[in-house]
C-alpha cells in the first residue's frame, strides 16, 4: 500500500510501530494533571469519612473545625441535601436504586462514606481541621459478603430492602433444558472473581472554579468521560449544561475507575459556588482504596452440559454480583456483560443466566478493565478445562472442537450478539506452535516423574469491544470527531473519545497522516475539554479507535472530497486526484500541495460550486455492531512443591484485534492488561472483614504487580479484520486482562491435576496452594 508524492512512494504509517507522541511530556514530568492546576486564591477540601461500614449518624460537631486556622467552611450532609444524587446510568427492570447523597445524611453505608467536608487555605490546614470534626455514630450490623448478604437474617444494607437484593436479571437462549436432558455429562463448579481495586497511578482529583456573574462552572477532573460528567454534574447542581465546562487534563490511569461520576465532582462544584472561590480536592491513596469504585466481585455457579465427545451442549450460570452499598454509574450493567459473553467463542446455542445483585456495606463495584468480560471468560475457560478433565480430552482439542467455525460468521450467539468475524483456531494453533505443545506435554510428564509441578494453561478468549451501538449502551454508543485542516495545512483532530493514555494522539495522527498524505508531525490530537471538543462519549470498553477512530476516518473522507474541489479550482481542471498530500491534475500532472489548497479554502478568492469556505468536518459515527476480538494465551507455570509459590515460566499471548494501526501500542496494551490479569490471578484481592473494614486498604497489603514480578511476555498476533468499521479494527485495551487470568489458573490447576484438583479460586496465593499440596501429599 503506497500513495505517491509527485511520483515518489509515500510509505503508509498505519501498521508502523511509531513511538507514542504523548510520551515525551509524560516521561519528562512536564504533563499537567489535575493536581498541577493552581488557580488564584484556590482553597483545599479535605473530606471526613466514615470509619464504620454501617452506622447511624447521631451528631456531627463542626465548631472546632470551623475555628481551626485557615478554615473558611465546613459542610455536612444537611447542607448538601439539595444537590442531586450520585447518578446510576444503567437501567434494568426492577432495579433498586438507593438515593446516593454526595454527603451522607443520617446514616453511613460503607467505610469511607463521605460525611463532612472541610475547606481551608491549604491542604494541611484542611486536614488538620478535618481531624477535629467529631461525628458521633451508632454502629449498626454490617454485611460485607454478597452471599451472606442474600442469606436470610442478614443485616439489611438499606432498611427499605431487607433482602439486600439490588436487582435480578434473567436471560434464556435456545433450549437449555433440552440440552441438559440430552447431555452425557454435566460438570458444575462455583467460581469466584474476587473484588479488585483498579489502582490508577494518579488518584482522582477535582478543581472547581465558579464564575458567579456568568453562572459558569469550570470543573477540572481526572475522568474518562468529560462530556458525560458535564451533563450529569450540571443536572446534580441544577446548572445549565452549556455553562459547565469540564476540563480533563492528563489522566494518570483510569482502567474503568474513572468511567464514572463521583460525589466529589458535584461536591466540589457546589462548594466553589458556596465559597465563591476555586477549590481543589485530591484523593489520597487511602481514599482511592476506599472510595473509588472496585472491580469484579463475582460469585458464579456454572453448569456445563456436554456430549461424551466434548461437544458443549449448554451452559447455565448464576451470578451473584457484589454491588456494594450503592449503584455507581454502570454498576448493574457490568454483570450483564458477563452474561452476553458467557458462551465465550464456542458455538453452543443454549444458555440460561441469572444474576442477583447483592447490596453489601462496601464500596460499589463497577467497570474495571474488562468489566464483566474477564469474569465471563474466566468462568467459561475454567469450565472448558474442567470438562476436558472430566472427559480426559486434551484442553486444546476440546476447544478446537467447540469453536465457532470460520464459515459461521457473522455468528449469532445464544445471548443475542452477532460476532462480526473470527478465525478462532488460528491464534490457538499459533500459540501451540510457539510453545511447541507436544514437546511441552512430554516435558511436563518427565518433570512430574521427578516430582516437579509443571502446568500448562490455555485460554482461548473472545471479547466484546467497541462498546457499543447506542441501543446497547447506557449513554449512547457512538463517538465524535472534528477534523480541521488549518489554513497552513496543519491538521487538528478533536476527538470526543477523550483518550487518556491509550495512545490515540499517535494512532489517530497515523490515520490522518495516511489519509491526507502528510506527516504525523503535522497532526495534533486534542481531547478533554468540553468547551473545545464537540460532545463525545469517552474512552472505555475498548472503543477509542474502533469508534472514535472511525469518526476521525469519516471526517477525513469529507475533507478529502473538499480538498479535491478546492484543488480542482486552483488547477483549473475537473479531472483531479488527491494523493500523497497533493491534488494532481490527471491531464497535465500539475499539482497543488495540501498547504496551498488549504490556504485557498480559507482565502476563498474563488469557491468551488456549492462549497463553503474552510476545511472542517465533524462526524458522529454510530457503529452498527460491537466488534469481537479474540486470541489465545498460554501459560506455563511451575509450583514450588514445598512452599506453594507459583512461578510463571512462559507467557505466550497471541491476540487478534483486527487490523493493527500501531503494533507497538498494541503490545503495550497487551502487556499492561496481562499485568493486571496476572495481578488478579496471583496476588490482588480487596478483602473486607465481616464488619466491612477493608483489610487490604494500603499498598503495603494490596499486591499490585511490579515490573520485576512480571514474566517475559511473548506477544504474537493474527489478523482478522472487522467488517464493522472501515478501518477493520476491533480494539485491544482489555484483551490482556480478559485472556490472562484463566490461562494462569488453568496452568496451576493442570500442574496440580495429579492430586485431583479441578479448581482453585483466585488469587492463587502460595498458602492456598500449600494447603492443597499438604492435603494431597
Amino acid at each position, binding site marked *: 500500500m503506497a500513495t505517491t508524492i509527485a511520483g515518489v512512494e509515500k510509505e503508509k504509517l498505519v501498521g508502523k510501530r511509531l513511538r507514542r507522541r504523548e510520551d515525551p511530556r509524560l516521561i519528562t514530568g512536564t504533563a499537567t494533571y489535575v493536581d498541577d492546576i493552581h488557580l488564584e486564591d484556590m482553597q483545599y477540601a479535605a473530606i471526613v469519612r466514615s470509619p464504620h461500614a454501617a452506622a447511624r449518624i447521631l451528631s456531627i460537631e463542626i465548631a472546632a473545625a470551623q475555628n481551626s486556622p485557615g478554615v473558611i467552611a465546613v459542610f455536612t450532609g444537611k447542607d448538601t441535601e439539595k444537590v442531586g444524587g450520585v447518578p446510576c446510568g444503567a437501567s434494568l427492570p426492577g432495579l433498586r436504586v438507593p438515593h446516593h447523597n454526595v454527603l451522607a445524611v443520617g446514616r453511613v453505608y460503607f467505610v469511607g462514606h463521605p460525611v463532612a467536608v472541610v475547606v481551608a487555605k491549604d*491542604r*494541611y490546614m484542611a*486536614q*488538620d481541621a478535618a*481531624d477535629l470534626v467529631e461525628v458521633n455514630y451508632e454502629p449498626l450490623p454490617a454485611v460485607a459478603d454478597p452471599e451472606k448478604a442474600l442469606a436470610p437474617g442478614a443485616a439489611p444494607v438499606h432498611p427499605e430492602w431487607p433482602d439486600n437484593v439490588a436487582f435480578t436479571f434473567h436471560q434464556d437462549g435456545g433450549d437449555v433444558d433440552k440440552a441438559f436432558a440430552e447431555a452425557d455429562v454435566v460438570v458444575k463448579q462455583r467460581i469466584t472473581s474476587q473484588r479488585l481495586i483498579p489502582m490508577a497511578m494518579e488518584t482522582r482529583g477535582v478543581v472547581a472554579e465558579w464564575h458567579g456573574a456568568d453562572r459558569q462552572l469550570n470543573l477540572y477532573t481526572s475522568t474518562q468521560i468529560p462530556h458525560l460528567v458535564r451533563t450529569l454534574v450540571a443536572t446534580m447542581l441544577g446548572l445549565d449544561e452549556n455553562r459547565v465546562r469540564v476540563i480533563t487534563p492528563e489522566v494518570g490511569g483510569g482502567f474503568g475507575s474513572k468511567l464514572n461520576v463521583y460525589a466529589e465532582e458535584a461536591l466540589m462544584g457546589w462548594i466553589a459556588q458556596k465559597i465563591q472561590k476555586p477549590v481543589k480536592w485530591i484523593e*489520597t*491513596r*487511602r481514599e482511592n482504596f476506599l472510595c473509588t469504585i472496585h472491580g469484579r466481585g463475582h460469585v458464579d455457579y456454572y453448569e456445563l452440559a456436554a456430549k461424551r465427545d466434548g461437544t458443549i451442549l449448554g451452559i447455565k450460570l448464576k451470578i451473584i454480583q457484589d454491588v456494594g452499598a450503592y449503584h455507581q454509574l454502570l454498576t448493574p450493567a457490568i454483570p450483564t456483560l458477563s452474561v452476553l459473553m458467557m458462551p465465550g467463542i464456542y458455538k453452543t446455542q443454549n444458555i440460561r443466566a441469572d444474576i442477583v445483585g447483592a447490596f453489601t456495606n462496601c464500596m460499589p463495584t463497577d467497570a474495571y478493565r474488562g468489566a464483566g468480560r474477564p469474569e465471563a471468560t474466566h468462568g467459561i475457560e475454567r469450565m472448558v478445562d474442567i470438562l476436558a478433565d472430566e472427559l480426559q480430552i486434551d484442553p486444546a482439542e476440546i476447544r478446537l472442537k467447540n469453536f465457532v467455525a470460520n464459515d459461521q460468521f457473522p455468528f449469532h450467539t445464544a445471548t443475542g450478539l452477532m460476532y462480526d468475524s473470527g478465525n478462532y483456531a488460528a491464534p490457538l494453533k499459533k500459540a501451540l506452535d510457539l510453545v511447541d505443545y507436544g514437546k511441552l506435554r512430554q516435558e511436563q510428564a518427565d518433570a512430574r516423574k521427578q516430582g516437579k509441578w509443571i502446568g500448562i494453561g490455555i485460554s482461548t478468549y473472545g471479547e466484546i469491544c467497541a462498546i457499543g451501538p447506542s441501543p446497547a449502551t447506557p449513554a449512547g454508543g457512538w463517538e465524535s470527531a472534528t477534523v480541521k485542516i488549518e489554513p497552513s495545512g496543519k491538521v487538528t483532530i478533536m476527538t470526543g473519545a477523550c483518550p487518556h493514555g491509550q495512545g490515540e494522539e499517535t494512532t489517530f495522527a497515523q490515520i490522518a497522516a495516511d489519509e491526507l498524505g502528510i506527516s504525523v508531525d503535522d497532526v495534533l490530537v486534542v481531547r478533554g475539554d468540553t468547551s473545545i471538543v464537540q460532545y463525545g462519549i469517552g474512552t472505555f470498553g475498548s472503543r477509542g479507535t474502533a469508534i472514535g477512530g472511525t469518526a476521525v476516518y469519516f471526517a477525513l473522507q469529507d475533507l478529502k472530497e473538499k480538498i479535491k474541489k478546492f484543488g480542482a479550482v486552483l488547477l483549473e481542471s475537473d479531472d483531479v486526484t488527491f494523493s500523497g498530500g497533493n491534488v494532481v491534475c490527471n491531464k497535465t500532472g500539475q499539482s497543488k500541495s495540501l498547504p496551498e489548497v488549504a490556504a485557498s479554502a480559507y482565502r476563498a478568492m474563488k469557491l468551488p460550486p456549492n462549497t463553503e469556505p474552510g476545511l472542517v468536518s465533524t462526524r458522529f459515527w454510530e457503529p452498527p455492531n460491537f466488534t469481537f476480538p479474540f486470541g489465545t494465551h498460554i501459560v506455563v507455570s511451575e509450583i514450588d512443591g*514445598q*512452599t506453594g509459590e507459583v512461578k510463571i515460566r512462559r507467557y505466550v499471548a497471541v491476540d487478534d484485534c483486527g487490523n493493527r494501526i500501531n503494533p507497538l501500542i498494541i503490545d503495550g496494551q497487551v502487556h499492561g492488561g496481562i499485568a493486571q490479569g496476572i495481578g488478579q490471578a*496471583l*496476588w490482588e484481592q480487596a*478483602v473486607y472483614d465481616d464488619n466491612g473494614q477493608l*483489610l*487490604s486498604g494500603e*499498598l*503495603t*497489603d*494490596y*499486591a*499490585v*504487580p*511490579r515490573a520485576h*514480578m512480571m514474566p517475559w511476555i511473548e506477544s504474537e498476533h493474527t489478523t482478522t479484520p472487522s467488517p464493522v468499521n472501515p478501518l477493520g479494527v476491533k480494539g485491544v485495551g482489555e484483551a490482556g486482562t480478559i485472556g490472562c487470568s484463566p490461562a494462569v489458573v488453568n496452568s496451576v490447576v493442570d500442574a496440580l491435576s495429579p492430586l485431583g484438583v479441578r479448581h482453585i479460586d483466585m488469587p492463587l*496465593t*502460595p*498458602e492456598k496452594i*500449600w494447603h492443597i499440596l499438604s492435603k494431597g501429599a
Partner: protein
Amino acid sequence: MVPQKFEYAAPDSLKSVLQLLDAGAKPLAGGMSLIPMMKLRLAAPEQLVDLQKVKELSYIRESGNAIHIGAMTTHYEVETFPVLLRKCPLLAETAAEIGDLQVRNRGTIGGSVAHADPSADYPAALQALEAKLVLIGAQKERTVSAAEFFVDAFTTVLEPGEIVREVIVPAEELGTGTRYEKVVQPASGFAIVGVAVRVRRSAGKISFVRVGITGLSNHSYRATSAEATLAGTTGAAADVQNAAALVAEGIDANSDLHASANYRKHLASVHAARAITTAISRAS
C-alpha cells in the same frame, strides 16, 4: 495524605542532634518508614531532627575483627561496600533484599533497626551475626547486643533521647559460609519470613552455626535449638532438615492476610533448610 505540623532541624554535628533529642525531638534518618507514618498521621512528632548532615554517623570502618557501620549508612552502601562484601557478605546480601533501589538509596541501617519492624530484613542478619549496637544519648553511650535490642514489634531498648550510633558486626573468619533467604510479601516487599545463616566447618563437621529469623513473630531472634541440633553434625541433608524443623519451635507466629501462623512457621522451616544448605555450600 499530609502530615501534621512539625518543626524541622538539620544540624551537622552529633552534639547538636543529641541536644535536640534531649529536648524531645524525633530523629529522621532516610524517612522511608517515618515519613509514610507521618503522612498517614500515625506518627505526629512536633520536632524532627534530621540526621542526614551528621557526617559522624555515616561510615563503614574495619577495626580488628569487627566492622563498624555508622547508623546513617544506607542500605545501598551496605549492599555494595567492598569490605562488607568480602568480610560480612551476609549483611550485604541482606541489604540487597530490602525494598527497591530507591528505598535502599535512602533507607539507613540505623533507621531500620530503630524502627524494629517485625518484618524488616536486617534483624535476621544482625541476630545471626550477634551484632552489637552502640546507642548514644546526651548523657551516656552504651552497647547492647542485637538479642537484647529487639524487644517487641516496633519496640527496642532505645530510651527517649537516645539514638543508634553504630552497628558492629564481626569480620567473618575465613571459610564461613553465609546466606540470607527471604520470602517476599508481594505487596509491601517486606519479609514474610527471613532466615539468615552463618556456618563454619571443621574436620567434616559443622563447627559453628548461627541462625537468625525475622518476620515470623513480633521480633527477630536466634533459633538456638536449630543451631544446637545442626552443630557437630556433618551437615547432611537429613541434619539440615532436622535443624530447620526447629526454627519456629515455641514461637508465637504472626498471622495476617498474606500468611497464617502455621504457614509462616512452615515457610521458616523450608527456607531455613534452604539457607543452611546454601550457607554450607559456601563454607570451605
